[in-house]
């Protein structure tokens, strides 16, 4: 269609940032400030990225709420949270640099909530030893996005003063999808994509590309992610020759709404259970009592009477089992549903209306009440919610050099934010994602800038362009093929049932076959209608990305024969210290995803010594502990 060379829209930039969430925008600011010309690509409108959904806050050891906090404590918390599978260097950089990144936002106009002394207020969060999350009510993510969006506008205004054009050095390409990252001679040369509005194609030539596309939630049926979380960056990187690390690790929240469909996936905060919400199956049984693991027997009540008393008297009673750790609750819900005691929508009931009066619910859980009333017409003061595990965050992602965020093996390619792997190990702490995207967004911008300054741009050849264009044209040329909507639904069903929160070897094997089958049929997806803003057409490409991600996740999951963080194997319960020494590396050979084991770099002594040896023994083999940290 637009393979005609003269008609093709072409742009030349120094750095191309794919994704306009927190990481992408932070990277763009950094690259621009080091004097480069930057293009920002976003799949939706500017400022709508999924980052706006983050509520809790951004973790940074500023020590405003407790002066004992410092980067070492934050580093320790992060490593513990990730069950020591984190790349130590990423966790170290993250802990050290987060405070500066938050303060920097303040210089750009962010207005965080304040302490009495006028400093940035910090709140407590699970897994963080001290109050550490800088926040603005429950809309911290929005504040981050807006601040950086406005910082970019500020840079554009400076460019206007200097060069007479707002967009001379930094331009946002909104509602544009990248379908391919282009390489010439083994180096990054640019990217190819199409405008979602018109469907017409665009070529970007740039020596450096930063991927900051966020997560993969839409691979799953129940997810808190928006439509954009289709793993584009993961797939683009794979196809460009980069590796994905530890794709088996996905964070599931145990209580996401499964019904009604209008709120499917949306999180029900833990405080609903903390305030007295109980979980029941379709037989009306409060089933959590059956799922208390032995190690928790002395902390959790084994009968309803005691559990109910706990809400009034916490000193003399054991906690209700609804308050077990997230993975235990998720596992229990999963087992009930699999045993046929779940609702027809694959969930269980969470009821807060039995224990508390309507006024108290509205007072203690105001945003929850509003959310369900406004979004779904569900009155949680009168009726139970239908909940089940919802896919929330992917820990796995592009394998990068920690200091530069450079993708391993592809010169000129960078990745930051949720799409990058390693930082969070097997499980991410709440609040660490917002600071992650600031820290590594900036580092990716710096890394790309340094690379661009010492390299020469490679022009994209006509052959490369023709191949990329052909791929976009393909679904229109087919007729009577598969429907992308139904294939997507099928994929979600497979991942939800077989690669979900609790996994077993046989199911994973089944999943791998089914995903391969869907992938084969997806090559036959036909699109109805024209190119102009055609969601069916858009989904065809997203689907392709999700299939690669699902394959990578399933294959990594079947390999890892242990349970750790966001990867739970029913057939291999418990952590295995031998497995802690390895990452799973996914690569793409043009045909399928291959997964191999790779040794995890070991902490140097100064970081090793931040921990008590007794604690490390829980995670590491005796040999490792004896070595005492080194590289």
């Amino acid at each position, binding site marked *: 269609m637009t393979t005609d060379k003269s008609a093709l829209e072409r742009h030349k930039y120094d750095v191309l940032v794919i994704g306009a969430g927190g990481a992408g925008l932070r990277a763009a600011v950094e690259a621009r400030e080091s004097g480069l010309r930057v293009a920002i690509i976003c799949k*939706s*409108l*500017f400022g*709508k990225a*999924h980052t*706006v*959904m983050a509520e809790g806050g951004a973790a940074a050891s*500023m020590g405003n709420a407790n002066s004992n906090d410092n980067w070492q404590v934050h580093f320790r918390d992060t490593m513990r949270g990730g069950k020591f599978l984190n790349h130590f260097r990423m966790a170290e950089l993250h802990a050290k640099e987060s*405070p*500066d990144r938050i*303060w*920097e936002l*303040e*210089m*750009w*106009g962010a*207005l965080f*909530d*304040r302490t009495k002394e*006028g*400093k940035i207020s910090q709140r407590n969060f699970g897994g963080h030893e001290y109050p550490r999350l800088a926040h*603005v009510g429950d809309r911290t993510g*929005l*504040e981050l996005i*807006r601040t950086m969006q*406005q*910082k970019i*506008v*500020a840079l*554009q*205004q400076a460019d206007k003063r200097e060069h007479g054009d*707002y967009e001379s050095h930094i331009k*946002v390409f*909104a509602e544009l999808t990248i379908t391919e990252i282009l390489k010439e001679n083994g180096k990054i040369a640019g990217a190819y994509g199409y405008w979602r*509005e018109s469907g017409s194609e665009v070529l970007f030539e740039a020596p450096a590309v930063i991927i900051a596309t966020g997560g993969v939630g839409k691979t799953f049926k129940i997810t808190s992610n*928006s*439509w*954009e979380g289709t793993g584009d960056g993961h797939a683009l990187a794979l196809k460009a020759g980069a590796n994905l690390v530890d794709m088996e690790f996905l964070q599931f929240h145990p209580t996401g709404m499964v019904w*009604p*469909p*209008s*709120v499917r996936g*949306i999180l029900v905060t833990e405080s609903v259970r903390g305030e007295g919400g109980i979980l029941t199956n379709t037989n009306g049984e409060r089933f959590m009592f059956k799922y208390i693991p032995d190690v928790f027997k002395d902390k959790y009540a084994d009968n309803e009477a005691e559990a109910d008393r706990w809400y009034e008297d916490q000193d003399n009673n054991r906690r209700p089992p609804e308050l077990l750790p997230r993975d235990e609750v998720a596992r229990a819900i999963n087992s009930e549903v699999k045993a046929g005691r779940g609702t027809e929508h694959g969930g269980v009931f969470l009821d807060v209306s039995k224990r508390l009066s309507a006024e108290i619910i509205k007072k203690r859980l105001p945003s929850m009440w509003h*959310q369900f009333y*406004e*979004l*779904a*017409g569900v009155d949680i003061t009168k009726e139970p919610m239908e909940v089940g595990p919802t896919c929330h965050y992917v820990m796995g992602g592009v394998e990068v050099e920690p200091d530069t965020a450079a993708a391993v093996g592809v010169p000129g390619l960078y990745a930051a934010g949720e799409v990058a792997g390693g930082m969070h190990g097997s499980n991410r702490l709440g609040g660490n994602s917002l600071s992650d995207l600031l820290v590594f967004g900036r580092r990716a911008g710096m890394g790309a800038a340094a690379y661009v300054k010492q390299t020469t741009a490679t022009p994209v050849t006509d052959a490369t362009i023709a191949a990329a264009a052909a791929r976009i044209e393909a679904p229109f040329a087919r007729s009577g093929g598969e*429907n992308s*909507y139904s294939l997507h639904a099928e994929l979600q069903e497979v991942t939800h049932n077989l690669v979900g929160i609790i996994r077993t070897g046989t199911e994973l094997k089944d999943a791998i076959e089914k995903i391969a089958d869907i992938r084969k049929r997806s090559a036959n997806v036909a*699109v*109805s*209608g*024209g190119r*102009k*803003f*055609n*969601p*069916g*057409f858009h989904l065809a490409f997203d689907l392709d990305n999700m299939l690669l991600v699902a394959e990578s996740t399933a294959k990594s999951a079947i390999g890892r024969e242990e349970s750790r963080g966001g990867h739970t194997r029913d057939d291999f319960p418990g952590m295995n210290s031998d497995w802690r020494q390895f990452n799973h590396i996914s690569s793409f050979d043009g045909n399928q995803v291959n997964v191999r084991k790779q040794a995890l770099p070991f902490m140097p002594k100064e970081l090793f010594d931040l921990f008590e040896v007794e604690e490390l023994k829980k995670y590491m083999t005796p040999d490792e502990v004896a070595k005492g940290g080194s590289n």
Partner: protein
Amino acid sequence: MARKINLRIWRGDATDGGLQDVQVEANEGEVVLDVIHRVQATQMGDLAVRWNCKAGKCGSCSMEINGKPRLACMTQVAAYGEDETITVTPLRAFPVIKDLVTDVSFNYKKAMEIPAYEPPKDLKPGEARMEQVDVERSQEFRKCIECFLCQNTCHVIRDHEENKKSFAGPRFFIRIAELDMHPLDILKNRKRTAQEEHGLGMCNITKCCTEVCPEHIKITDNAIIPMKERVVDIKYDPARMFAGLLKREKRS
């Protein structure tokens, strides 16, 4: 549980278009965006609609439902009568691209024209001190999710295309107010430029922006009117005008 509802959807593009009737199933608790998605998946594969978070936090699915500017993800199907036809059109203040999607680039252009936050020159990162009471007013305006429903409903540009050149719109009046009330912002001329460059005087405070705001920001009472009053401070205040006259007399 599920029932059939009558939906009337505007389909077309800048050249032509019109309302099309469809029947679609709606389940209990569903919002208008859900049924639009169902139409998309089952009857009109190429129906264009913008959306993202589906939780009222991103402000993408702005459209007009029975003539009212709303977020489709925050509009319950049950809010309409059993036999009522729900009419869905694109925003009517902006150029249409296709179906329910409009070209909202006007708003991004205006965003570029509002001078950015300017901290004190000698302020170092980490040294900023602000009291909670001093940031609260601006924080209200930063709740804005940029759905542009206020821009869409504002008759100054909705009904007068030619005013788009000289009028920034409610979304950017709250941005200006946010910065003018920011405890550390040092840029002095925000009030004057609000009036002289961004068209604050065009607003006749008919409050439609406040009525449609899904974040319930008091756009008119807390931003536009206070800004108008601040403009009065520097341009039309009786005491100041009198003082100004005296000064001029002294000088002459």
